[in-house]
């Protein structure tokens, strides 16, 4: 076969292959991971993290602003210590509260940040003091049954 024809087809093949890779890189995937360089860490204690996992999203007003980096257990307070990294572009006031929420009824769990009104902003390695634990379905059902039983006893 002619060398030029061969080169042409191979060139076309390489262009198509690289095009497919670019399609996968830009149209199909996203750079989800918040890298250490352009983010800062915040720490929060939770009584119960429920099903929260490392790499779970941190959302504020429904927008993903960061990712959970680490989940540890505090053996003094018997609480969970959650470290999460927030994108540098976003800053939050000192009295911001963090809650563990579930997207949908059975969806993944995420941390929701509710901004406060303080003029001082949170910095790297600061602690989010106001937290709200994950809702554990069993506890909720238990409380409901307990309430019902008490109502019954009063009557």
């Amino acid at each position, binding site marked *: 076969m002619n060398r030029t024809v*061969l080169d042409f087809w191979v060139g076309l093949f390489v262009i198509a292959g690289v095009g497919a890779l670019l399609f996968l890189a830009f149209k199909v995937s996203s750079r989800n991971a918040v890298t250490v360089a352009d983010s800062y860490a915040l720490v929060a204690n939770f009584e119960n993290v429920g099903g929260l996992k490392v790499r779970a999203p941190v959302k504020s007003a429904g927008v993903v602003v960061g990712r959970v980096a680490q989940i540890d257990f505090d053996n003094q307070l018997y609480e969970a210590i959650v470290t999460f990294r927030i994108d540098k572009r976003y800053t939050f006031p000192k009295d911001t509260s963090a809650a563990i929420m579930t997207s949908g009824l059975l969806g993944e769990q995420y941390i929701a940040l509710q901004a406060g009104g303080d003029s001082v902003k949170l910095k790297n390695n600061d602690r989010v003091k106001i937290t709200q634990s994950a809702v554990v379905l069993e506890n909720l059902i238990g409380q409901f049954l307990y309430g019902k039983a008490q109502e019954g006893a009063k009557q």
Partner: protein
Amino acid sequence: MLKSAITRLGHRVLDAVWRIGFAARFFVATVFRSGTAFTRLGLTIREIYFSGVLSLIIILVSGLFVGMVLGLQGYDTLQRYGSESALGSLVALSLVRELGPVLAALLFASRAGSAITAEIGLMKATEQLSAMEMMAVDPIARVVAPRFWAGIISMPLLAALFSATGIFGGYLVGVQLIGVDEGSFWSQMQSAVDFQEDIVNGVIKSVVFGVAVTAIALFEGYDAPPTAEGVSGATTRTVVTSSLVVLALDFVLTAIMFRGVS
């Protein structure tokens, strides 16, 4: 009786060990004598044409149909839980992580690997390789190395094309035919697929498969008994061995790469 059985077993084991050693030396020789594959780029480009460009049709058509089937089956299962908007992430993740590299490698082994084995085996049977040696042309540098590098270059491109056409097939069936919302199809896909975790790991997988399949095909061809029967047996062994090796390597690579991914 017992003695002859033991002798046969010993013979088998020694044979297998010798073959593994020969394959390893062949692989090392190919890598070290690859200079010609790059100094005479025309040779490699010719082989990319034969193993890459000519595999395009089967790769693209299979990719499209695999994606379309994934779209249909995925929708059928997901709609029971009312989460058919996750169809995009299902199709993209399964293609990019597993089906793209693995199926492309299996097709590559049967389309290009068998051709490489048959060609080199026949070259050996008709004593073309010995003739080259007589003319002081190194057959490994002249014949084997360009095919080796052509396989390594072609394989990731073919796998990427497989995944891309597969996702397009899933889009055709899911969005155009069934009517899943287009916006949620793409946005769920983008939020689920991570560039580093999924795309880059998929490309690494396909490069590894490319090395494995081409090396096996070249070795089987080079090692084939110089008879018609020998070449046909070697071609069959290429397809069987490289398919098994691809599947086994895929398990190992997946276990290493995706352990931490939820």
